[in-house]
């Protein structure tokens, strides 16, 4: 009972104190707000990049061009051989005849040129399109396919894919770094702002100690206050995420620059990000005030 009363008092005092020392509270809240906005943006970018990378990885295919003089039996054996490879997810066969038809449909010039080709002198090649399980091993897989006898050549967008993957990886690492650094900076800002709040209530603390409040009783209201500040600080970032991201998504129809870059759908994405931001805000407020209180009370 006593514990509950003390907890209730802590929460009530925390809210009262936030409004009593409003200018100080506002300083802390603005600090948290600004940082959380940047953190939210970084998280949104990271998640979208991750999403984009995995979407793109799904689209990556190895195209295997077969020798011209290959017969159907050999194609079948090759197909089973390829299927048995560890990194092969799925494969589809496309004959040169069907490729020709597809290309003729695509443009009139092709149609005109290709109309004269008979099956015999069709210079195109039969192909397998292979999807891989692990994109990072795509070059190894392509190499071992190329060594097979009936294969004339293999294409998978070599240099381009490798470079793109590398670039994304480093962008992701950088944004993780930015998020972590910003969270740390916020913690330090809060330690300082809450230290000021505590300082303005020095007298209250000294009276609490005089009348025999234990360290726990003294600490708790300030820690709760830090959490309340963190909670208030996350309101504006959450609103910005909810309305801003939906607006961006609607404005761009879910694509950035081209059909290739798709954005993550707002629902339930924005709820998840809001939750993350709220939790970060509260934890950051708590950690900041806890260490500020510990420093001040010299426990």
């Amino acid at each position, binding site marked *: *009972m*006593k*514990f509950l*009363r*003390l907890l209730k*008092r802590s929460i009530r005092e925390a809210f009262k104190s936030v409004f*009593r020392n409003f200018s100080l509270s506002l300083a802390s809240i603005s600090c948290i707000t600004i940082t959380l906005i940047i953190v939210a943006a970084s998280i949104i970018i990271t998640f979208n990049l991750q999403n984009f990378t995995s979407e793109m990885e799904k689209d990556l295919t190895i195209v295997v061009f077969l020798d011209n003089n290959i017969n159907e039996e050999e194609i079948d054996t090759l197909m089973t051989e390829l299927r048995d490879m560890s990194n092969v997810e799925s494969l589809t066969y496309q004959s040169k005849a069907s490729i020709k038809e597809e290309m003729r449909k695509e443009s009139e010039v092709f149609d005109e040129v290709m109309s004269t080709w008979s099956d015999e002198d069709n210079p195109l090649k039969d192909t397998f399109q292979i999807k891989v399980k692990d994109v990072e091993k795509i070059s190894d897989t392509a190499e071992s396919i190329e060594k097979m006898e009936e294969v004339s050549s293999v294409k998978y967008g070599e240099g381009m894919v490798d470079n793109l993957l590398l670039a994304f990886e480093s962008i992701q690492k950088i944004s993780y770094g930015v998020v972590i650094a910003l969270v740390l900076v916020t913690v330090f800002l809060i330690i300082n702002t809450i230290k000021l709040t505590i300082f303005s209530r020095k*007298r*209250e603390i*000294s*009276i*609490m*100690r*005089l*009348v*025999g*409040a*234990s*360290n726990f*009783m*003294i600490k708790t209201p300030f820690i709760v206050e830090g959490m309340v500040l963190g909670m208030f600080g996350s309101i504006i970032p959450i609103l910005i995420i909810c309305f801003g991201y939906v607006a961006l998504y609607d404005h761009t129809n879910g694509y950035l620059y081209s059909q290739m870059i798709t954005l993550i759908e707002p629902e339930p994405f924005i709820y998840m990000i809001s939750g993350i931001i709220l939790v970060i805000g509260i934890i950051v407020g708590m950690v900041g005030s806890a260490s500020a209180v510990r420093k001040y009370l*010299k*426990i």
Partner: protein
Amino acid sequence: MKVMVMIKPMDLIRVRNVNKQYKNGVTAIYDLSLNIKKGSFVFVIGGSGSGKSTFIKMLYREEKPTSGEIIVGGINVAKLRNAKVYKLRRKLGIVFQDYRLLPKQTVYENVAFAMEVLGSPKQETRRKVLKALELVGLKGKIHNYPDQLSGGEQQRVAIARAIVNEPKILLCDEPTGNLDPERSIEIVKVLDEINKTCGTTIIMATHDKDIVNTMQKEIILLKDGRLIKHAEKGGYEE
């Protein structure tokens, strides 16, 4: 940790061979030994720098003695760990020269604060706060803020706050230092009333000769950190 010291049941405070040297090298108390009985009203008197403030501070463990032993209500103050100081403080009420009230809280809230931070239930808090404020004669001003009160009234709020948790001992460090003689005697009369009606042991440091001479209570006279006189009843003479 058990304190293996024989304390006569009547001795609420027992001080043995206490020396206090501050970090800057100043020695404030030399070899002080004395007992204070339960229910007594003691004036600790002496000029500036006599060590009376240091003595009071050691009783509520704001300062630790350099050597010697201080037992307050069964607690060995000299050996008390920082985290356990609150156990001592709950047995004490403390009043200062500068009142130390919370300016943004009403008289009632200031006194109730001392109970709320310890987790007292609302009803009990209300009953005891009103009782304490009645005892100091401020029941009519419970909704005022400290800056709407006179100095004497503010000090009476501080006294109400100090006694609201019903401590065994009330320590007063120059409580009348900021007040004119008339208000000063009022404050001491309030303390005397508390001593008589609640049986609270009162230890008051002062350099006000008139008060000590008027009240004729137990006195502890300090000079340059040494005990000069400890008498059951007496006035202020050096």
